[in-house]
Every structure is written in C-alpha cells, then in structure tokens.
C-alpha cells in the first residue's frame, strides 16, 4: 500500500459522524467525515485507497443513491452501511449492489473496526487487480494491428506456418512479429502470453 488508506464517513447526524471519527481515530486510522453524499462526491478522489462508512437515510441524496452512483461509475470503493433504523428490503438492495455489510446503530465497536479492516484489505486487492489489468491493457494497445493478429493466432495455438498462410505474409515476417509481441507483452513464454490474452479477453467482455 503506497498511500495511507482513508475511512470516509458520510452521515447527516453530526453527533454520529463525529463519534464515529472519534472511535476510528482511536485505532490510528485516517478518517474524513462528510455531512452529505454530495459533499463526499465533491471531495472524493477515486485514486485514493480507502473505504466508505455510509448512513442509509439522509436528506437529499440517500446512502443507497450514493452507492448506486459509485456502482454505475465503476468506482470499486468498498461500502459499509450504517443505519439507525434499517429495514430488510433496503439491506437487500444495498448488499446486492455489493455493500460489504449493513450494520444497525448502535453498533459493536469491535465489529465495525473489523469490518473497516476487511474493507481496506478488499480495496487494496481490487486496486492491485485493477493495476495489473491496466498494465495488460496498456501492453495490448501498444501492439500494432498486425502484431495483434499474430498474437491472437499464437494464442489460438497456431504454428508460424499456419499464421503465415492465414495472414498471407511470409514465415520470416511472422517470426519478427512474434518476437515483437513477446517483448511488448513482456511474456516470458507462450503459455504466459496465452494467459494474458485470455485475461484480456475476459476484461474486454466484462467491459462490454
């Protein structure tokens, strides 16, 4: 973790907000509090690691609305809901949207601190995956169109001769492209390259 993670607390009730900051501050974690979802969105930087403690019911944009917004904007910030008086349908909806947990007030301090810890680990994991994915994406987009074709065919298990026939180029050229693909993708073996191509395809599909 390159940067210190931050716990974002969003609750319209000042007492609850500040008491939470106090509690979390007790275990030496960074805390930032916001009185409304809007205020949080105005200050939020998605590149920073952390997690979100979110009150469900707030005037204006509710906690669920904020979670929805993060979801649609594909910001994978882990969310823990806290609720003064939650009902079951609301909790279900929140969990379906990928909330880590849904905690009712007043809550057990140990439980909330454990959840925060869990959320921070999840966030770190997501960020690592995402960074790996971005690297892969970057490498693939550095390939020329021809190299991309060669790579796909290599991944499909074709030998050089077949690739040459299919793309109507000489074997020598295929070899050149292949070498470039290996170096650009930083693949140490064909097996690794195949793994990368498959992973990339999966990412592409999910993005679609």
């Amino acid at each position, binding site marked *: 973790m390159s940067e210190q993670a931050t716990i974002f607390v969003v609750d319209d*009730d000042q*007492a*609850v907000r*500040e*008491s*939470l900051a*106090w*509690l*979390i*501050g*007790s*275990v*030496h974690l960074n805390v930032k509090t916001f009185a409304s979802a809007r205020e949080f969105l105005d200050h939020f930087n998605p590149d920073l690691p952390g997690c979100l403690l979110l009150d469900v*019911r*707030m*005037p*204006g944009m*509710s906690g669920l609305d904020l979670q929805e917004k993060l979801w649609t904007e594909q910001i994978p910030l882990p969310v823990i809901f806290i609720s*003064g*008086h939650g009902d079951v349908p609301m909790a279900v909806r929140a969990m379906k949207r990928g909330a880590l947990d849904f905690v*009712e*007030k*007043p*809550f057990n*301090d140990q439980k909330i601190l454990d959840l925060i810890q869990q959320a921070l680990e999840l966030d770190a994991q997501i960020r690592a995956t995402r960074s790996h994915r971005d690297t892969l994406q970057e490498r693939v987009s550095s390939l020329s169109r021809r190299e991309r074709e060669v790579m796909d065919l290599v991944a499909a298990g074709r030998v050089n001769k077949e690739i040459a026939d299919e793309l109507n180029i000489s074997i020598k050229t295929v070899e050149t492209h292949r070498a470039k693909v290996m170096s650009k993708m930083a693949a140490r073996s064909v097996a690794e390259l195949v793994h990368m191509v498959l992973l990339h395809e999966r990412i592409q599909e999910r993005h679609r």
Partner: protein
Amino acid sequence: MPLTAKMVFITLSAGVAVWGMLDYVQTPLLRAQFHANLLKELELNNQMNRIILDRLIKRFHNTALILISQKEFGRHVEQVARGPWKTEKPLANCLTTHPPWLPRNSVLRNLLQAQFTLLVDADNHVREIYLQDKHILPPQALLQPSGLLILLSHSQSYMTEINGAPYLITSEPYRDEGEEHLATLMLATPIDDNFMNLLREQVFSRSLLVLLRGERDPQVITTSNPQEAPRGTSLSQLHERFLVTSLESFDYGSSDLLLQFASLVTKKEMEDLSRSILGQERRARLFLALTLVLTFTGVMVWLTRRVQNLDAQVRTFARRELGEPLVDEEDGDQLHHLKMRFAELTRNVRLAHNSLRKSAEEFQAVVENVADAIVIFNETPRITVFNPAAQRLFGYPAEMMLGESPARLLADAFKAQHPGRFDRHLAQGFKALFGRRLEITAQHRDGTPIPLSLTISHMETSGQRLFIVAASDITERKRHEEVLKASESRFRALIETIPHGIEESDREGVITLSNPAHARIHGLTREEMVGRPLWSLIHPPEEQEKMRLRFAGIMVQQPAPTPWNHRHVTRDGKIIDVQVDWNYRRNQQGQVMGLIAVITDITERKKAEARLRQQSDELAHVARLQTMGEIASGLAHELNQPLAAILNYARGSALRLRLGSLSPEDLTTALERISEQAERVGGVVRSLRGFLRKGVSHKELADFNQIIREAVNFADFETRRRGVALRLELAAEPLPVRADPIQIQQVIINLIQNSVDAMSQETVNIRVITLATRKSDTRKEVEFLLSDSGPGFPEDLLERIFEPFFTTKEKGMGLGLSISRSIVENHDGHLTAENGPHGGAVFHLLLPSSLIKGEPSR
C-alpha cells in the same frame, strides 16, 4: 353498265378527243416551225456558200502570187524584160501554148483556173497570154489592160464588166532584186457557168446557187442548175418557184460590178419534205396517245377494282363491327357511294367511338372509385386491372401487381390449406364460382391475412377471356361479429355470474327473465321466478297491492327511475332487505316494453352500517394509537442516533485508554459529547410522553403557531426518515385559539403523515411539505395550509378521502383524515382538501380565533 366498262369508255373517249385536238392545234404549229427551221438552215448554208465563194476569189490572187514566186518565172521575166521586151514591140497576138513560167508540176498547174493568164511588161503592154481553153479568146479589153492595171495597184482581186460580161480579175507585179518593176502577172476569168461549176465543186449543199446582177429586178447571170433557173431569170420569177434565202450582195476592192448571190430551194421539194416529216410526227403522236389511253384505262380498271374492294370492306366493317349495315345502293356512282359510305361510316365510327370512350371512362371511373377492390385477370393468369381500392386493400401499388398471378394475393395459410384449388378453378374457368359470394382469406403485402368477401365473373373481350374479381374487406365485419359474439357472451357471463339479481318484466309486471343470483337471493329456481309478478315477493303482503298500483302508474306516467327499497320474503320465510335499481326496457321504436331491474341484497350492508355506527365512537382513540405506531419507528431512529454516538465515544475512549493514547483533553471532549447526546435522548422521551398522554378533550387558550411547531417536532423524526423536507411559513403574530393542543397536534401530524405517504412513490422527485399559518381575511378565524409536492388526489376521490375506512394505502385503516376532520369539527372548525394549482395536495384548516369571541386572551 358496270363501272369498269364505263371507265374504259370514258378513258377512250377522252383519249381520242385529246388526240384530235392536239392534232388540230399542233400541225400548223409544227409546220411553221419546220419552215422557220428550214429557212434558218438555208441561211446557214448560204453563208457557208458565200464563205466558199470568198475563198475561191481569194485563191485567184494566191495563184498569181505562187506563179510569180517561181524561179522559172523570175528567170524568164528578167531574161525577156531585159532582152526582147526592150527591143521588140508588143505584139497584137502573143498567145503562148506553153509558157516557160507555167509550172510543170501538174498540181501547181491545177491551181491555175483562170481563163486568161497575161504577162504584162513594165509599160503595161501585154507580152504573153496563156489560155485555159484554146478556143476561147480573150476579149479585146484585156489586151489593153492599162486601165485595168491601174485598178490593180493593191494587188488584189476585183470584179469588172468586160464586154457586158462580168469578170474576175487579179494581178501581181514582179520586181527584181533592185526593186525594179519588170513585169506584172495578171489573171482574168469570166464569171460564167464554168465559174459556177467551180464553186459548186466546193459546196456541199444540194441547193441551187445563182449569181444575180442588176439593180431593180436582178437577173440570173449564172446558175448551178441551168434547167431549174436559166440565165436571165429575174428575181421575182425566182420567188414564184423557189424559196429564196437571203441575197448576199458583194463586191471586192475597187470592183465596179455589183453582184448578188442566192441559194434557192424549190417550193415543191420543201412541201414534200414538210409533209413527210409532219406525217411521221403525227404517227408518233397517235402511237403515244394510244399507249397513254391503254395504260390509263388499265390503271383506272385497277383503281376501280380497289374502290369496289374498299367499298365491300367498309360495308363488312359497318355490318360486323358496328352492327349497322350501310344502305346498299345498287345503282349510281360507286365512288359517290363510297364517299357516302365513308361519311356514314365516319359518323358511325365517331358515335361508336364516343359511346366506347364514354363507357370506357365510366368503366374506369367505376373501377377507380368503387369501394370494392377490383382485380381483373386473364386466363394466363395475369392481372390486367388492379384498382386503387385493391391497392389499398392489399398494400401493393398497381405496377407491382399488373402482370402477376392473382394467386399471389391469397393467404399463405389458405394456399397451404387448399393446395392447387386456384389452379383447378382456373382450368375450369371458375365456372363453379360464378354467381356465388365467396369468403376467402387473402394476404396483405406485409403478410397480414385479410378476410375477403368476393364475387367472380367473367367477360370476353377481343377474343380474350377475363375474370373480374370484386372483393371487399370483411375484417371489420368479422371483427364486429366477433366483438358482438364476445360482447354477448360477456354479457351472458355477467348476467349469470353477477351476485346481484337481475330481472326483466313486461308491461304487465310479469317477470320474463331472471338471472341465477336473482333466483338464489330468493331461494327459488329461475323457472319459478319467470311468469310471476314483480311484486309477488314483497313483504309484508299488504304492500304488494300498493306496488302493483304503483307499477301501473309508472307504466303510464313513465317518471324518471329512482331506486326502490323493499323487503322481500324468501322461500324459507327469511325477510331480506333489497335495493331495486331499475330502468325502462324499450324496443327499437323507443316504446316502453317493461322494466329491467337490478336487485341487490342489502341485508348484510344494513347490519354492517348499524354495527359501524356503534363502533364509530371508539374509533378516534384507536386511530391515535395507530398514528403512534406509525411514528414509533421514526422515534426509534431518533433514539438510536444519540445512543450510537454515546456508544462510539465511550468505546473509543476505552480503546484509547487501552492503547495508552487517551489524553485528558480527548476524554473531556468525549464525556461532554456523551452528556449532550444523553440530553438529546431525554428530550425525545419527554416529547413522546407529552404526545401519548391520554385525556379527554381539554381545551385551553393556546398559540396556534406553537401548536404547529410542537407537532412538527414530533413529525420531524418521520419526515427525516422518509427523506421529506418540512418548510414552515408561520405567521409572525401569535394566533390565539381555544383548543386542545394535543388533539390539534394529532390532526397536524396526521396530515403530515398523509403527505409523507403520498410522496413515498418512486415517481416523486422533490419531497417537500409546506406548512403555513395566518389570520383569515375577516380576522375571525385562523388558517392553516398544508401543501405537498406529491401527486395530489384523483379528482373523483376528493370528496371521499374524509370518509371513514377510505384509504388508498396498503397498510392503514383509512381513519386518520376522518378522525382529523371530526376533531376539527369538534373545535367548531373546518378541514377541507383540494389539489394545488401546481399539483400536489392542499389541506385547509380553519379554526375560530379566540380573540374575536370576546374571551380574554390571558
């Protein structure tokens, strides 16, 4: 007389007449022209002869020149002129037979055609004479030629008269090298018959040539034909027998003789020639005329035949095509007939054409405008007409279907169901279908099936058999039938299943129809119901007679129907309350045929109403408890908030303490916060206790604004929980009222609760409730207005919302607004509802202002 013969006769007559006329006119013309031509020819001849004569005369001089230029001549002359002639005297007779200067060459000698050739010395004395004819001696005048020689100074020919006879004379002097004149050669010949013969040898003309002399009436001096025109004949005499061409007068040089030269042609000869030529001409003309007449006759016969054929064709056409035989005239001019026929035919054709065009236009108009789809096709089968209605019906433009098979329009399902049916009918020429109305299913261009009602008929035109299909879309009819069927079955099902009794009666009040519910309500079968009077079920029995009379009155007066309430008795003797909603049953003419009535068993309802009345007094308290329940959850939230904060501060402090990081300042802060939150809990509990306090109406003088504020404090839990904003627009002045604050607060909370529920729908984006108070315009009342940003009330429910048990919510008993209104009315106030001008609901509460009532405010 047949036309052909007539034509031949006319042609022949015309030919002969034309020929005769031509002959009469042309002959003199030809003759005159012949004369003119002949004269011109003679003239030319004569000029030719004249030229020959001139040449002949010139040759005389040329002969002299040739003779002189001979070497022998020069030698002889120089010898004699310097010798003998110097010494010797000229002799009187110096004829020589063969002079040395005469050319020996016979050709040259032939040149010398002069009668007399004389050699004259420088002194003009004749020294030698050569004669052409030894027997003819020269006249004496020639022997003293000095007079003649003077005239010869120009060395040319000339004519002169010697001894009364005309002579042609020429001379040429001879000079030696020193230009000394030594001698002169002189040639002379009489212009006589010999001369004429000489001339004749040169000319080609057969004509007679004469030389004439004399001033007045010139006479012939020599002629080429002495028999025809002997010497001495005068010109006038010549004119009698000859055609005299122009006279040519001529003279040469210094000739002292005037001669005229003429060519003659005898008149007889000319006549013969003229006649022969004219005869030939006439024969040629006759031949030409005959040829023309024959050819023309042939052509005329041929033309006549054609005319007759044409006539026959016209007649046939008129008879067969127009059905109107032309008047057949046996006599008269066939051409005239033909002309008349054509006129008649033209008229007939025009009439036929007009009627044809009119019927075609009518046909077109009918086909274009008829509502039915018209499709005409031939035996091929190819569509030839596809009218606009068909285009609309099937969805194809005409140009897409023309030439196509009509089978294409049939529905696929129809074709699959009856394979080959169309082709079988087509093979039989659709005979089996004529005169029938068929219902088949066709197919729209988009594939939609179209039920069609159609007829098919046929017609023959220009040897072609056409089938005409007139089709109309019966989708609507089918649909109507189905709708009707469905409606009837729905109606039947309704009648059969509706829990209300339905009966029909006739004008006499006898039941004619009874539905199962009607029978069931009364515990009877439907059969038992039908046939009995309407009023036979009424309880008590004495009421039945009243009803009978009332019914009879209704039948007569036909008042507006109003429901009846009766008590009926069932089969097992039970008395039931029924409501009878009825109306008149009318036939199509609008006459009343009886009644139709709906009978509702309201026994249970009446009981329920009675029960309800009993219970209604207890309701107010129940409703208040319910309101409490609804806000309890909000209250729980409100308590949880400070409790959570307290807990967080406490646990946090404990944690810090354990970690050794709790500073005294931190602890102070935490404890202060815990105290604040604990107080907050206390406040909530106090408010709740106040609200729950049970008590009868306990009116006291209070500020209406204050009551509202306290109510808002309670409602605040719930509105915040539900994401609704409350906006207060309270009057600045106090609004004193005499009221039970708890009860009025309950009303306010109820109204807020109602708005919050109404705005909980997903479609509501802005959730605001505005609460306003003010004094009324009359200042006798205080007003409270609550408006929300919800959907408002459906207009038809606006009056019902204050009814007890009326609710649109899933939960809730529908008592809140009812109780509210009763509380307000208990305070001598009014509570009404309406829809706001910009949507949303608006509640309007009026309470009497206590100051106006004259009561002391404090």
